[in-house]
């Protein structure tokens, strides 16, 4: 069964460094998302991406963040100048097969980011 894959599973970085989290969505899905979950808190929407552009972003997703689909398979989240409060589990998700966008999201296992 196809799955969303994320790398790395865990990244430790120094405050102020740039981080790129990578995701390979399910092939033929058209909608891509990043969510994050700070330890002990709820899963929060960051950004959705469709047709090679951001379709919606939350107030969390400020200029520090960017997303890109550099080729036909990867979907990346870049966090510039990381802060301590960026430490969280970041989930990638994808959905939709053509017009069959049912609202069901398929999640990756997450990338845990620890900022020291």
């Amino acid at each position, binding site marked *: 069964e196809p*799955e*969303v894959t994320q790398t790395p599973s865990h990244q430790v970085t120094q405050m102020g460094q740039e981080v790129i989290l990578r995701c390979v969505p399910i092939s033929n899905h058209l*909608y891509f*998302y990043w*969510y994050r979950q700070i330890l002990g*808190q*709820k*899963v*929060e*929407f960051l950004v*959705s991406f*469709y047709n090679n552009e951001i*379709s*919606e972003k*939350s107030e969390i997703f400020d200029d520090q963040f960017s997303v890109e689909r550099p080729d036909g398979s990867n979907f990346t989240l870049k966090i510039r100048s990381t802060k301590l409060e960026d430490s969280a589990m970041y*989930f990638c998700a994808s959905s939709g097969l053509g017009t069959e*966008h*049912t*609202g*069901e*999201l*398929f*999640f*990756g*296992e*997450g990338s845990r980011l620890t900022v020291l």
Partner: protein
Amino acid sequence: AQRVTQPEKLLSVFKGAPVELKCNYSYSGSPELFWYVQYSRQRLQLLLRHISRESIKGFTADLNKGETSFHLKKPFAQEEDSAMYYCALSVDTDKLIFGTGTRLQVFP
């Protein structure tokens, strides 16, 4: 404002007991609601959606627009139901708004 509330952080029951995980939502549009589940060391996955009105693994959830609720129920809990359960509201089919989650513990 769009919001999903799950009032219980932890729900502990014994095997065979009924389970109800509460979820209330706030949304001015026509809501589309989901329950997602995360078993230990597994990814977040869809359990059920209100549109399909189906029972999955014995779980059901009915959308009550009057009470703005979408509680998840199962008449007889099993140990393998132990997991984190998230209620989620789909907004414009473009994003999900999650509740804070309820951890269900089913004791033997």
